[in-house]
């Protein structure tokens, strides 16, 4: 079942899409050295889904697409491989299961049309834990279950490339947390290169190995940057600075916690230690955290009578006021970048300025994933 891990997958795109209100130009060589998830992200309306649909062959585009040396699109030569002849499968928002078929029939629809064998079928049912759902009708499934079946259905068509178009967008937080490990697991287990579209920072942080950032200016969209997530962390965060999701990513090491800390996890930064709620699933070792800007407040001196555990010395790198009466303050925490969102009024009242040493109070820390 497992493909040769040394095999490299490459997708070369150079095309443009014309829409009524915008134009997307996409030029990139997307490579998977090993199975992994490339996340395409950008603000809503910048054409992420169009990009993905053009690669699938569901959207008209002008230019070229080559996958593993096979030409999928060459508008100059007039070649356009229709979607069903491209070696891809796609998972859509809300799963898009066929409502006239039940779960097992949905899976069979794909199974019958692919070269998957009985072993693949078993493996897929097991990996996604689909056995209890097989005889249910689609309307009986929860949002998360639908997406699991949709993922299985796509796997059974044995694609060489899996496209996922905001697959978790319509799910609640708990269902998202339930599905994401499946996606990571599938990617590794089936050695499947995945191209994943999202506008959620959480999904980028938890799933991405590489990121492809789309930028829109004056109704023109293009690929601004691409590369490994760890190299582009700053840029990724910048993209979200204006939104409610603004926050920062901190790398640390999950270390042993003595009993006196009552079920808290400790994360060692360069000098400081962060506390988080116990996360049973994650092993000790290097780890990535996410801290929402709105969960970080500032004080001039270290309060000793606060219930907040994480009060750490930081220095102010930059203060940028926003139009909603709030300001984003960039902080240096042990050489890492921490973002805080406080009211502009507080900035003035405390007379905050660049270079100043203050204390950051961090209300909540989310563990993202091992690094």
């Amino acid at each position, binding site marked *: 079942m497992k493909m040769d891990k040394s095999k490299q997958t490459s997708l070369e795109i150079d095309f443009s899409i014309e829409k009524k209100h915008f134009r997307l130009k996409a030029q990139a060589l997307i490579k998977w050295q090993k199975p992994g998830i490339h996340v395409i992200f950008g603000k809503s309306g910048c054409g992420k889904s169009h990009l993905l649909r053009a690669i699938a062959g*569901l959207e008209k585009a002008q230019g070229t697409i080559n996958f593993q040396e096979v030409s999928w699109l060459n508008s100059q030569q007039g070649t356009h491989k229709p979607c*069903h002849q491209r070696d891809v499968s796609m998972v*859509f928002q809300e799963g898009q299961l*066929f*409502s006239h078929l039940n779960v097992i029939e949905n899976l069979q629809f794909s199974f019958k*049309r*692919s070269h998957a064998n009985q072993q693949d079928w078993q493996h897929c049912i097991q990996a996604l834990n689909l056995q209890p759902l097989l005889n249910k009708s*689609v309307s009986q499934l929860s949002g998360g279950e639908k997406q699991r079946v949709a993922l299985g259905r*796509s796997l059974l068509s044995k694609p060489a490339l899996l496209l996922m178009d905001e697959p978790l967008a319509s799910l609640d937080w708990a269902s998202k947390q339930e599905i994401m490990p499946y996606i990571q697991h599938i990617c590794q287990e089936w050695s499947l290169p995945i191209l994943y579209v999202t506008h959620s920072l959480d999904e980028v942080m938890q799933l991405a190995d590489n990121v492809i950032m789309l930028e829109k200016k004056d109704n023109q969209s293009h690929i601004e940057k691409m590369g490994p997530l760890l190299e582009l962390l700053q840029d990724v965060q910048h993209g979200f600075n204006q939104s409610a999701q603004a926050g920062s990513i901190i790398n640390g090491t999950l270390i042993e916690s003595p009993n006196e800390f009552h079920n808290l996890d400790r994360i060692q930064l360069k000098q400081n230690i962060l506390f988080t709620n116990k996360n049973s699933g994650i092993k000790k070792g290097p780890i990535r955290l996410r801290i929402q800007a709105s969960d970080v407040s500032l004080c001039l001196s270290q309060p000793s009578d606060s219930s907040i555990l994480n009060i750490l010395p930081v220095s102010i790198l930059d203060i940028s006021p926003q139009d909603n009466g709030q300001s984003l303050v960039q902080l240096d925490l042990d050489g890492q970048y921490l973002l805080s969102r406080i009211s502009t009024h507080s900035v003035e009242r405390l007379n905050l300025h660049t270079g100043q040493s203050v204390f950051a109070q961090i209300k909540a820390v989310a563990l993202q994933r091992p690094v």
Partner: protein
Amino acid sequence: MEALFLTLKLAFFSTLILILLATPLAWWLAHSQFKGKALVEALVALPLVLPPTVLGFYLLIFLGPQGPGGWLASFWGGNTLAFSFSGLLIGSVIYSLPFVVQPLQNGFQLIGVKPLEVAYTLKASFWDGFKNVILPLAKPAYISAATLGFAHTLGEFGVVLMIGGNIPGETQVVSIAIFENVEAMEYSQAHLLSALLLIISFTLLSIIYKTRKQQGAGLL
């Protein structure tokens, strides 16, 4: 009873031809971005508003010796399609066209292109996807369309009178036979045929409204 058999035969073949004809037309109307689409839609809907006599008059010209219908009939030695079963069939198809196209168009619009796109990404071609995804999803729409087309053809009168005349066994359908019975004061025969038509139409419409209620389970 000859009239009843003829009416059912006409309704059956009209519906069959209509379903075959309306499927591509309704699909195109549901999904095309073509600017002149509204004109085509208006054309399809015309039989809803035109008096049957107007439609019948043009059909008479069209099917007669001077029209393309007459030219067509010359291939098998005739000189007109008017006053024949084939002429009646053509008239019925045009007359009932909106009753079949519109439910199908609505059905296809409700389903959207998404299920077909999903089928494409699972290696299904257009025909494969249309047959195995769109058609099953559109089943309620097809039941509506076929029943409406059938029932509407049963009730046809004006157009038949104009282009079919009143030839027993060839063009004399139930509605015409009732008219003639009444003219000839044969009320018992008129009673029987009227009651039959009433019962059949009521049954068919009940089927439509029953399936419409179930249509809610169309697409998720």
